[in-house]
């Protein structure tokens, strides 16, 4: 009992000290956007935090790696990466900590942009400039924004698919987790570009939760029902598309169908190069990181007087024609082993 009490006391004391210390440092930094340039003129570098969604997710960790690389080229900026472990609650409390710790700039890869808008707007108003990267619902006017539009990602692949598929094609659709913005936007692009003004039939569409195994399982079952009448698998990400291909290959019909994904990462590049998947669209983390770092630097040094900038980076269609370029690139940056 006694030791417990002592421990509790100790913890309380540490927390109080931590809080007061946090307050003091936040006092220093919350003096407005303009003065944040001065706070670095004590001869220090600017402290920048990057809050990705989930470092165990392929794209987020790739983006983090690219950002780290780009930031190394700036002498006056220093990047810290704080994982949100795919939990909104964690991301919000990290955000709070970063602000109170006196970070000069925060780059947020949001989990739920709509839910985080008000908080982000509040921090910006209090003097910490922020950027939404990769995902943004444009709910905060003063936040910088660097995104590849998920709708565009869908559009690029959908347009390519349109050139390959007959007008009366039968397709099955694999969706991401329920309520996921990326999945919804990409699906909307397909609806408008591909399905709306053609005679195509969507045989079935199911949630595959971004998972390869789910894509595989659903495809196995679909092959039972529809057999080789399926002309194409339209998947909202690559993992599920590749899973579906594995199932089709095992059933011996892998070469009779087309497989479309989105994301354009290493797995898709390999798959397209091997003639399995048909096409995917890439949101290029490298370009995104470069743009993000540029805006961040301009805001901090006062070069950008407005305090924010919104850019959309172009999306790239990957097909068998240009895939080799990406295989090389992913091999070079270590995402693919030789």
């Amino acid at each position, binding site marked *: 009992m006694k030791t417990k009490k002592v421990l509790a006391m100790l913890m309380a004391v540490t927390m109080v000290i931590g809080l007061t210390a946090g307050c003091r440092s936040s006092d220093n930094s919350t003096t407005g956007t303009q003065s944040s340039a001065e706070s670095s003129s004590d001869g220090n570098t600017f402290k920048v935090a990057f809050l990705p969604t989930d470092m165990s997710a392929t794209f987020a*960790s790739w983006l983090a790696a690219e950002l780290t690389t780009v930031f190394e080229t700036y002498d006056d900026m220093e990047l810290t990466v704080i994982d949100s472990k795919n939990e909104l609650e964690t991301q919000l409390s990290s955000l709070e900590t970063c602000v109170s710790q006196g970070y000069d700039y925060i780059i947020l890869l949001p989990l739920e942009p709509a839910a985080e808008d008000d908080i982000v707007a509040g921090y910006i108003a209090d003097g910490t400039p922020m950027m939404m990267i990769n995902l943004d619902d444009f709910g905060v006017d003063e936040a910088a924004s660097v995104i590849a539009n998920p709708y565009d990602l869908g559009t690029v692949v959908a347009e390519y698919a349109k050139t390959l598929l007959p007008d009366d094609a039968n397709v099955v659709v694999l969706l991401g987790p329920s309520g996921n913005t990326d999945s919804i936007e990409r699906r909307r692009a397909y609806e408008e570009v591909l399905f709306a003004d053609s005679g195509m039939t969507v045989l079935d569409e199911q949630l595959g939760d971004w998972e390869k*195994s789910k894509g595989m399982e659903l495809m196995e079952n679909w092959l039972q029902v529809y057999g080789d009448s399926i002309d194409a698998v339209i998947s909202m990400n690559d993992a599920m598309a590749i899973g579906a291909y594995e199932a089709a290959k095992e059933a011996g019909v892998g070469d009779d169908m087309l497989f479309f994904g989105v994301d354009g990462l290493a797995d898709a590049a390999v798959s397209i190069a091997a003639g399995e998947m048909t096409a995917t669209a890439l949101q290029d983390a490298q370009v995104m990181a470069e743009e993000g770092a540029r805006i961040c630097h301009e805001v901090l040094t006062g070069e950008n007087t407005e305090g924010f900038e919104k850019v959309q980076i172009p999306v790239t269609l990957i097909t068998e024609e240009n895939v080799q370029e990406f295989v090389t690139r992913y091999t070079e940056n270590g995402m693919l082993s030789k």
Partner: protein
Amino acid sequence: MRAKPDMRKYSLVLILVGMMIVCTILSNNFLTVTNLTNILKQVSIVTICAFAQGMIIVCGEIDLSIGYLAGMSGSFACVMFIATGSLPLAFCFGLFLGALVGALNGLFVAYFKLPSFIVTLAMQTVCFGSICLYTGGQNIYQIGAFKNFGQANLFGVIPITIVFMVLMLIITHIVLRYTKFGRYLYAIGGNKEAANAAGIQVCKIKWAAFIVSGLFAAVAGMVMMGRLNAGIPSEGAGYETDAITATVIGGTSFSGGAGTAFGTFLGSLIIGVLNNIMNLLGVDSYMQMIIKGFIIIFAVLADVLTKNRKTTVRIMASASDEKKK
């Protein structure tokens, strides 16, 4: 009075057969060799996890690390294969990691008396973290011949995943029914204090149980990665709960001391058939969730009702006992 046969086992078979008859009527794609093979393939990994979970639940504990452990050991085995090109070596390495994590779980649960719920929950992140640390959060592609663990066919017809599942079924059945180790698991789960007072080395057996569970999870993980033709650590997540569902539907008592390998297998098949028919019929994704949830509740309800029936038997047994005096 005669000893009653275990109605439980037969009731599950009846439920499964009943479901299959209904499915056959609902969809003419259901009762085909390929579709039934598909179902077996689809349940194989979760069933192997469920065998592990079943053994742990039988001895009165729980292992929540199974899914992530499968993801980790499977992915590391891929790494090992890419590095060495040797399938046996990769397989052994995966098993080694499984046993290692299982041993850690067991150490804390059995010897330090920590609750298994917490220990194995914590071990989830340890497993996931260590594989992500190694790969930098990236998945492992181009795993080459490693895919044979999940995509090869035995004699050119029987999918290897099913072979693995049946193999693990046989092993689990033998362990639980014919070995002292299995008998001790039941005893410990039934009454830990009594098992100790009967000279069973409770700590040692529990420790061993977690190691076995780790080994099973590793096998599941390697089959999983083979089937996915990639090393994807996050794919393991969630298998532990699916495994719990399968074991509980299969009649394993959450309070420990009861449960069989075949029960777990049947429980897993019931879920597999359910998932399959809903997809064959094109049932809406959200509707599927609702239906699945209720089926699980009904299965547990059936469990409780069967137990009530046993209470009646109990009254009769003790009463007829008195009569004889």
